[in-house]
């Protein structure tokens, strides 16, 4: 894990290479995080890949409800030779949830970006096929959002088919 000084150096180099990219650095529980501008995610990850962080371990979505900007996307980068991890975070508002996709240059992000789109409604521009992955294709809403109610999923059983589908409304 990079120590807090190493994290600051990494963030500074990233800020010099890509001006107005780095918003904040967080060092928490022996783990470094760089918060960046959503639009700059592609070049920022490329910059870190050149630094040795060449393995994208995980991409996950977070809903920071009720804070704004609400939706977050985290990229867990791993340097296998130095055994080093760093997290890149970005936040997008709910009314404009657009993030450039990193799938073309990091093929591992394909399924995970689709999952975040499915669960949180973050739109990854440039993704080769941004479709729902876990929920049914005709599903409405993004169930992992914090204000999405739990339970109450209407299920139509064959025995009730004759009564119609009005009860689901």
């Amino acid at each position, binding site marked *: 894990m990079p120590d807090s000084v190493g994290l600051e150096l990494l963030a500074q180099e990233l800020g010099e290479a890509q001006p107005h990219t780095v918003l904040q650095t967080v060092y928490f529980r022996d783990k470094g995080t760089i918060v960046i501008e959503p639009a700059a995610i592609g070049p920022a990850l490329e910059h870190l890949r050149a630094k040795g962080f060449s393995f994208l371990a995980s991409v996950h979505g*977070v809903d920071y409800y009720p804070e704004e900007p609400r939706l977050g996307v985290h990229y*867990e980068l791993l340097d296998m030779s130095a055994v080093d991890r760093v997290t890149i975070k970005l936040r997008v508002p709910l009314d404009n949830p657009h993030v450039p996709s990193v799938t073309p240059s990091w*093929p591992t*992000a394909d399924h995970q970006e689709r999952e975040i789109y499915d669960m949180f409604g973050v739109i990854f521009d440039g993704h080769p096929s941004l479709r729902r992955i876990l929920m049914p294709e005709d599903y409405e809403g993004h169930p*992992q959002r*914090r204000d999405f109610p739990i339970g109450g999923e209407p299920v139509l059983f064959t025995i009730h088919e004759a009564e119609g589908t009005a009860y689901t409304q």
Partner: protein
Amino acid sequence: MSTDVTRTSEYRQMEESITMAPLERLGSNELDQELLTLNMGPHHPATHGVLRLLVTLEGEVVRDLQPIIGYVHTGIEKTAEDKSYWKVIPVVERMDYLAYYFNAYAFCGATETLLELEVPPRAQYLRVIHMELNRIMSHLVWLGTSALDLGAISMFWYCFRDRELILDLFEQSSGQRMHTRYIQVGGVAEDVPRGWAEKLREFTSQMPSRADQYKDLLANNEIVLQRLRGVCPLAEEELLKLGVTGPLLRAAGNPWDLRKASPYCSYDHFDFKIPVGAEGDNWDRFAVRVAEIYESVKIIEQALDGLPEGAWITDDRKVALPPRHELATSMEALIHHFKLVTEGFRVPPGECYFPVESPRGELGCFVRSDGSSKPARVHMRDPSFVNLQATAPMTEGSYIADLIATLAMLDPVLGGIDR
């Protein structure tokens, strides 16, 4: 005799008179070049769960493949947000249902990191023993079902016989055969009962010879060799781009294993090797997993030999339940018990990603706490979910029969993929 000879030669003459030209023309017919889209699954015995594959075939050759998943999505991550931390453990265990100790440990590890909680050494060793038993169990299920896919039906019974011994050990230590809820935040649920260690030693003494038998049965078998050796390889660089970890990556020659690379849970106390392959074909994937069984047995024996005395769960009363006998005498213990059971413990706000090496690769648990007693977000980076993306590059251009063998060697667990 002489009539036989003439009859044969007449037959040969007749055979030679047949011209194959029309058949060869038929081979280049455009009809034959047509692509066929075949739907495999979701209910198919060779997909190891409810996995649906849309396969585009040209004759028998796979040209394109698209996995369609989500059939057993049960919203475990959403459910976890509505439960206090200690009640989340049983639901996350049900994600990858062959690696429940790993799921529980990844979640507990993330929570312990957020709490900055020390885990007693005895608990760490007990966790290691159970996780390695779980790894052997998972590999046995994989070996049995994969051999079934290749047509070796008896392997399935042998592997499940040994798996049963491990499940008996789980049942004795925790009361459950599967989804044991043994690993708790701060330690393990209970100390192992009397007689358990002897039973475990009995198991570890016979497991290597059992694995030898399985290797003898399969590794020199002509059919297995032809189905696996040199089939559907994928280079290390491709695997890294696709985020593949675990035995699949090690089969391609990359010795990345989190137990060695960044030891957690006192894995650095044990002496074990990381089996790696050379070609990255199905044979290497098979050989790496079988070799891992022996290494896991070695780890278990060392952990049992060096099992430290002492507490098996943290004595932090704000996190772990007080011992039962204290409830009758101590008011404070009663209050702690009541608070823990009703509300649960509160976790300082923050975010944490905790990766462990599961039988299928890097299993990472991301937990975000908002300071309350329920996690604000739990996300599992499930290795099967990520590794599944490698199916298409592995099998493109190979026969559909090899697709079945590759899928078996990929070892996806759909409960983990769909969560």
